[in-house]
């Protein structure tokens, strides 16, 4: 992984010292809240419903075991003993005291972590495929490019006050696990004639006006990555609307100006910028790439697994590694009934120790709020599974219906219109009681506590959006969303459901799917695409009473 040099360390130390002084001045009254707020936001400090919240970036989701231990230490020393992994490969601490945050940032700085640009109208944490560097289907590791983008965008003077926040995601695989089509810029690595390059997608985004991104360049040579991205952000910075917060994201800029106009302007700006990049970026990319070398793999061949519990876990929670004697292991942070994405300090430490013992010290955080050990020799899987199980981390549900993405919602978030966590807990608990989820198979349920859509509900096969309807929590359902390379925005089923009705409603959808699918191989999404909304709508809304009324009419 990327190792900080003296310049990086000095930059971070200076920034932390600056923020320490700003906090001190806020506490002694020399800064007003209006003056302080933008400063704290630039450093990832929010004020939520019950407390401050510190959002720490985990660049492209990659963590070393030492970094994970420091995340655990923060949770224990300055928070309530846990942290919340988010859908943008960040970790949030929900309970820090303002006066403690400078110490937290210094401790993070010891292991090259920070909270810079995890808020504000800037380029946010660059996210990547969580299987990067390990996946069997990968063309190349996308993380060196993500790191290059991180360095370019951090404190970039031109892009500190964009019209709105700006999110970039990169994948090195044709199977899109990074939701690139729902980002301001999505980069999909491709190979053409032996050369590496990117399909560049712009204007994707969820929120109030969900849009699937559009391809602005089919193939951008890798050497042009920075000047081209700079051209896009610079055109957006100029054209993006600042008069209306809800129309300020680049998706609206693309929508209002049209893709052709955007393309013409970006190409024009790119032509100006390209000569200014004199190769320093490519030299830096080479340097970065050397730090992302694969671990020195040991032989991991193992005999066939006979234990059914272990076999089930391997089937659900591992995917093929580029080496056949290794596996990529996803540790589920979705035990049935637990808060999606939360890990206690003890669990974080255990995962760090297990990474050291069995996975070359590497971990990843997925946007699906799970933890990944990207390189596990297959002969280590039994010991790993046993250790995880003992710590409540052995749930075999990755990719299944209880592997739910849920944003913090109204249990923490000041912007929320309803809760999302207890809905996720309720659905997972119910699925566990029904014992159907292995039969149901691949199903992504995603829940957001407001229209901002941090829980990606628009791209959930089943999406749930929590709203405030006349002072009561109400949940709208969408179906058929898809965050992968076949991205689609889900369609609303109809009227929403009350808090105590949403879990039974989801249960009815799942049971309807089971009865109408053409075979075990037809997933929920495939079945929905085949039969459409009608049978699901009937399952949701047609009760005995409405049927009777319809018959009588």
């Amino acid at each position, binding site marked *: 992984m990327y190792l900080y040099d003296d310049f990086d360390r000095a930059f971070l130390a200076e920034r932390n010292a600056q923020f320490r002084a700003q906090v001190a001045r806020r506490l002694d009254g020399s800064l007003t809240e209006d003056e302080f707020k933008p400063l704290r936001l630039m450093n990832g400090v929010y*004020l939520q419903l019950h407390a401050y919240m510190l959002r720490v970036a985990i660049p492209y989701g990659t963590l070393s075991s030492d970094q994970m231990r420091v995340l655990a230490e923060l949770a224990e020393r300055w928070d309530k003993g846990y942290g919340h992994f988010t859908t943008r490969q960040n970790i949030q601490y929900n309970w820090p005291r303002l006066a403690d945050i400078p110490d937290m940032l210094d401790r993070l700085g010891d292991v090259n972590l920070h909270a810079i640009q995890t808020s504000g109208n800037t380029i946010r944490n660059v996210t990547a495929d969580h299987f990067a560097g390990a996946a069997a289907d990968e063309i190349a590791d996308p993380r060196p490019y993500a790191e290059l983008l991180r360095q370019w965008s951090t404190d970039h003077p031109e892009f500190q006050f964009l019209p709105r926040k700006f999110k970039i995601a990169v994948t090195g695989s044709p199977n899109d696990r990074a939701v690139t089509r729902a980002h301001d810029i999505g980069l999909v690595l491709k190979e053409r004639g032996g050369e590496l390059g990117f399909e560049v997608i712009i204007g994707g985004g969820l929120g109030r006006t969900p849009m699937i991104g559009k391809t602005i360049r089919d193939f951008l040579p890798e050497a042009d990555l920075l000047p081209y991205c700079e051209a896009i952000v610079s055109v957006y910075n100029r054209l993006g609307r600042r008069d209306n917060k809800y129309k300020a994201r680049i998706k609206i800029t693309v929508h209002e100006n049209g893709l052709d106009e955007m393309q013409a302007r970006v190409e024009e700006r790119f032509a100006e910028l390209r000569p200014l990049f004199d190769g320093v970026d490519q030299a830096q990319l080479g340097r970065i790439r050397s730090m992302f070398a694969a671990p020195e793999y040991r032989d991991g061949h193992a005999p066939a697994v006979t234990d059914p519990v272990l076999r089930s876990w391997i089937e659900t929670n591992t995917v093929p590694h580029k080496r056949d004697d290794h596996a990529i292991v996803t540790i589920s942070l979705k035990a049935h009934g637990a808060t999606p994405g939360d890990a206690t300090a003890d669990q974080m430490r255990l995962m760090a120790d297990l990474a050291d013992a069995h996975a070359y010290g590497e971990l990843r955080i997925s946007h699906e709020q799970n933890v990944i050990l990207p390189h596990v020799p297959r002969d280590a899987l039994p010991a790993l599974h046993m250790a995880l199980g003992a710590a409540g981390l052995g749930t075999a549900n990755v990719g299944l219906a209880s592997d739910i993405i849920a944003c913090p919602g109204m249990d923490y978030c000041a912007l929320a219109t309803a809760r999302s966590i207890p809905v996720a807990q309720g659905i997972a608990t119910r699925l566990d009681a029904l014992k159907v989820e292995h039969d149901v198979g691949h199903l992504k349920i995603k829940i957001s506590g407001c229209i901002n859509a941090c829980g990606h509900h628009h791209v959930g096969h089943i999406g749930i959006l929590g709203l405030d309807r006349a002072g009561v929590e109400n949940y709208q359902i969408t179906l058929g969303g898809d965050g992968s390379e076949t991205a689609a925005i889900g369609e609303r089923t109809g009227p929403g459901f009350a808090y105590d009705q949403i879990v039974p409603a989801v249960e009815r959808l799942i049971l309807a799917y089971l009865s109408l699918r053409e075979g075990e191989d037809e997933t929920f999404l495939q079945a929905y695409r085949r039969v459409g909304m009608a049978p699901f709508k009937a399952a949701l809304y047609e009760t005995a009473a409405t049927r009777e009324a319809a018959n009588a009419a």
Partner: protein
Amino acid sequence: MPKPFTPKVVTANHLIEGDVVYLTADDEWCRDLAQAEVIENEAYADLRLSFAEDQPGIVVGAYLADVTPDGAPAHFREAFRAGGPTNYPHGKAHGQRPGPQPSSEA
């Protein structure tokens, strides 16, 4: 027609702890909604709100929140603010948090 006035409390977040606080009748900040001053008329509500806003060294983001005449939260958002998150038994409704305790000022 202007909406008839409904009872209010003054609430904010504590500057250092960040947690939810309420203004009491004797000008203190408390952490328990039950001890908050329930305000019955608009002119007095404005007065109490400006009093709160004049304390930027103690609280952040003061506003008037609706309560029922007996002082219970009128909206579910305020109920969660008063009781803490519902996913863990460690919010206000469940006593103090482990680890560092809130400081005594305010």
